[in-house]
């Protein structure tokens, strides 16, 4: 059972590498990989597909900056943030806006597991924590 899981992980990693073009997950490649898996069913297809999905989701999250905001956010702001994050991480990153009124005012940027925040709610929370 352990050997099956290990083989599924290894296959999922190979399929994921084939899905990435120039450091970005390609939708066409992903479709091709899924067609390949459907056609040539591996020993444990469900396990392979789950591992593949985790890898793709993690890569997409790494390539996407979710900008949570309260109040208006212009496209120029999103572009500047995406450019700054791409420079910081050394890969192409796209910015996606997401409304979050709990911030009161300001931005919270999430890239993968990293979070950057400059908001009134964050400052109030820091103030409460400091007191």
């Amino acid at each position: 059972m352990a050997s099956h899981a290990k083989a599924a992980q290894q296959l999922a990693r190979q399929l994921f590498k084939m899905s990435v073009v120039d450091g970005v997950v390609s939708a066409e490649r992903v479709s091709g990989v899924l067609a390949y898996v459907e056609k040539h069913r591996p020993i444990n297809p469900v396990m392979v597909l789950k591992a593949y999905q985790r890898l793709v989701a993690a890569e997409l999250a790494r390539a996407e900056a979710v900008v949570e905001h309260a109040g208006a956010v212009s496209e120029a702001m999103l572009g500047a943030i995406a450019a700054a994050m791409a420079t910081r991480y050394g890969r192409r990153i796209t910015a996606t806006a997401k409304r979050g009124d709990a911030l009161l005012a300001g931005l919270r940027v999430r890239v993968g597991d990293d979070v950057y925040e400059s908001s009134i709610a964050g400052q109030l929370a820091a103030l409460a924590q400091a007191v």
Partner: protein
Amino acid sequence: MLSHMLILAQATGSAAEAAAAHGEASTGITTIFKNFGISWPFILAQIVNFCVVAFVLWKLAFKPVLATLDERNKKIASGLQYADDMKAKLEAVQQESVASSKRAQVEATRIIDEARKAAKEFLDKQAQESAAKAGEILAKAQQLIELEKKKMLAEARTETARLVVEITQRVLARELSDAERGRYNESAARELTNI
């Protein structure tokens, strides 16, 4: 013996009177012996007889009596000595008893003093221990009170901060305009792009 001498004296007196009366010059002891009818054998026999009687009496009566008297004297002397010894012993015992009584009294006094001293030391020690325990309890109580106070102050501070933050959030959520939010967002975007 005394009676013999009285008789001899009476006889001597009679002979003198008789010589004076007769006026004759009879001479010396011979005349006296003759007048009194004394004969030397008879005298010797009496002497021997007296010696024998005296010897027998000495041996059979006087000596045992003297021995008995000596023995009684010795007994009396020993009794007196014993009495004296007993008296001396009694005195010694009395003195010893008095000395023993004094020693016992001194010892009792010493023991009482020691007991008093020990009791006093014990009381002092108990008092000191009690004071130390009381001080310790007091210090612990003060520490506990101080901790409770700090804890209460911290809780009050936390609660106050929470209330302030919550009120501020509500006020800001209600009072901030879109323009103000937009300006704040621009500022935040600049800050985030300059990380």
